[in-house]
């Protein structure tokens, strides 16, 4: 999308790619070493939350931004991951990789069934049916007392262990989340640039056209739905450890709307945008709520203004500045 502005000669294009990678390495390094620069406990916790939201927003970007499937129920995979991980950590083991394997298995099983159904629909129907699915999960969360703890939810989930060593909250947990975020980003970047990723974009542009060039639209929508839930499930797993628990409200439509707004605000179809959007919104939330209780009003207003003036989101603005800077430079 950037290339249309100025078709740069081949060597310049290559070095620009190198520059983008350099920027990524710097960003990742900054993210991973952030706690070393004397940030307070509170800031670290806030940023951890922002990064978890970032993973979740990237998973939604895959559906909304790349495949064009808008959903009002993306809390489902997230919440399911949180519950499965929390329950397993409480009752069996809090060894992180094991917990993740279990929660992802649970998320995958439900996503395979739900995705099979919703891959046959599009547009508003898709948005609403996925909303219904998350509300069903919410009701199960409330009603299945013996497993979910009802309205109270899961309380007192232990800290995760990594190969037997407890990951303390604060810097250690932050570091674990940051590493996972970088890995998830790289995996999704690879996925979206692969032939499979391009078929998703083809489906977004026109399902009919995609089918006419031999793309199995149902299968691809099904797969991307499952992948999206799996990534959301990773975020949910991290959240339940960070918060030491979860309530059924994690499935609430408000949460789905929130992550959708964050993703759009960050910039659809860019991965990096929703991730940065998540961090920005998390800090904004913290700043605003200490001054002013009507956070939702402020966020709503900011969201509307952002959509009107920056329809491509934060990422769109960033890409424009980056390209302009690059072009004037060379």
């Amino acid at each position, binding site marked *: *999308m950037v290339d*249309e502005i100025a*078709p740069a000669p081949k060597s310049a294009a290559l070095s620009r790619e190198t520059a983008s990678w350099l920027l990524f390495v710097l960003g990742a390094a900054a993210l991973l070493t952030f706690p070393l620069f004397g940030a307070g406990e509170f800031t670290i916790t806030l940023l951890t939350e922002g990064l978890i939201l970032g993973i979740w927003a990237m998973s939604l970007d895959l559906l909304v931004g790349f495949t064009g499937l808008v959903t009002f129920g993306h809390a489902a995979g997230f919440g399911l991951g949180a519950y499965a991980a929390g329950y397993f950590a409480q009752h069996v083991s809090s060894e992180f990789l094991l917990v993740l394997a279990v929660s992802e298995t649970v998320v995958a099983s439900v996503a395979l069934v739900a995705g099979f159904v919703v891959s046959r629909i599009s547009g508003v129907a898709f948005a609403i049916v996925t909303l219904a699915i998350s509300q069903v999960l919410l009701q199960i969360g409330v009603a299945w007392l013996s497993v979910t703890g009802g309205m109270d939810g899961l309380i007192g989930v232990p800290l995760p262990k990594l190969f037997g060593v407890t990951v303390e909250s604060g810097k250690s947990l932050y570091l674990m989340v940051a590493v996972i975020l970088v890995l998830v980003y790289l995996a999704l970047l*690879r*996925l979206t*640039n*692969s*032939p*499979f*990723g*391009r*078929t998703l*974009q*083809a489906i977004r*542009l*026109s399902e*009919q*056209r995609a*089918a*006419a*060039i*031999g*793309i*199995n*639209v149902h299968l*691809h929508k099904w*797969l991307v739905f499952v992948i999206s839930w799996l990534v959301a499930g990773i975020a949910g797993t991290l959240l339940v450890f960070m918060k030491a628990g979860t309530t059924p409200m994690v499935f609430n439509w408000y949460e789905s709307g929130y992550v959708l707004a964050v993703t759009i605000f960050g910039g659809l179809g860019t991965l990096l945008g929703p991730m940065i959007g998540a961090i920005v919104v998390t800090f904004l939330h913290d700043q605003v709520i200490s001054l002013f209780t009507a956070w939702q009003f402020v966020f709503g207003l900011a969201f509307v203004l952002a959509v009107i003036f920056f329809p491509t989101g934060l990422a769109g603005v960033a890409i424009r500045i980056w390209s302009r800077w690059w072009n004037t430079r060379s």
Partner: protein
Amino acid sequence: MEPLVEHPLLIRDLTKSFGGLRAVEGVNIELCPHHVHSLIGPNGAGKTTVLNCVSGFLRPDTGQVVLGGSEVTRWPPHRLVAAGLVRTFQITTIFAELTVRENVELAVRSRLGRNLDVIHQASRIRQAQDEAEEVLGWLGFLEKASGRGDQLSHGDKRIVEVAIALALNPKVLLLDEPMAGMSRSEAERIAVLVRRIADKTSVVLVEHDTETVLSISDRITVLVQGRVIAHGAPDEISRDAAVRKAYLGALDVE
């Protein structure tokens, strides 16, 4: 009843209703190898419905579609494409955000079975690049290959639509009004192209422009209100009294 020639595509007794409306009723078409077989008829005659039923975008009520000797009735579009039955659309549906080359590469990768590949970089698959280049070169379209889909003229978009279809190596190509909305000279360019395509594959052409159809078709089937009222070679069709009465009135003018 053994056919004397191996027909790339046979349509037998195809029927499709929408509610109470019989859009297509008992349509038979036998496509011969390397023919341009045109389907003509006034608006609402059911031409596009036939195309949709054959290409899997609609499910016919009754009838059979036989592709290269095997029955493929009611197969979904993507399976038909894999089996060699490819269509274009009346309304241009190329991917506007992608360049011409990317549009064609997408189709090539799909044919090469790479749709589920999550490992490689889509833009660096050599074989797809080469084959897209070949198709665009064959069409004389390489100069415009880097342009974005939405920046092309209407006529060029129609060519890209054809390029995407050709990139799928069709055994049978269904062209839905490829000349719609074109200027005279652009339409002639497409007419020449359709003849060239027939050297490579077999073509079913739905088209409004009767003059062009008569000049480039090997066979013509005339549909009126969902039924076949005539079929044959172009000169037979232009002489057919029923066709003249129902449809070709415009030809009297010449």
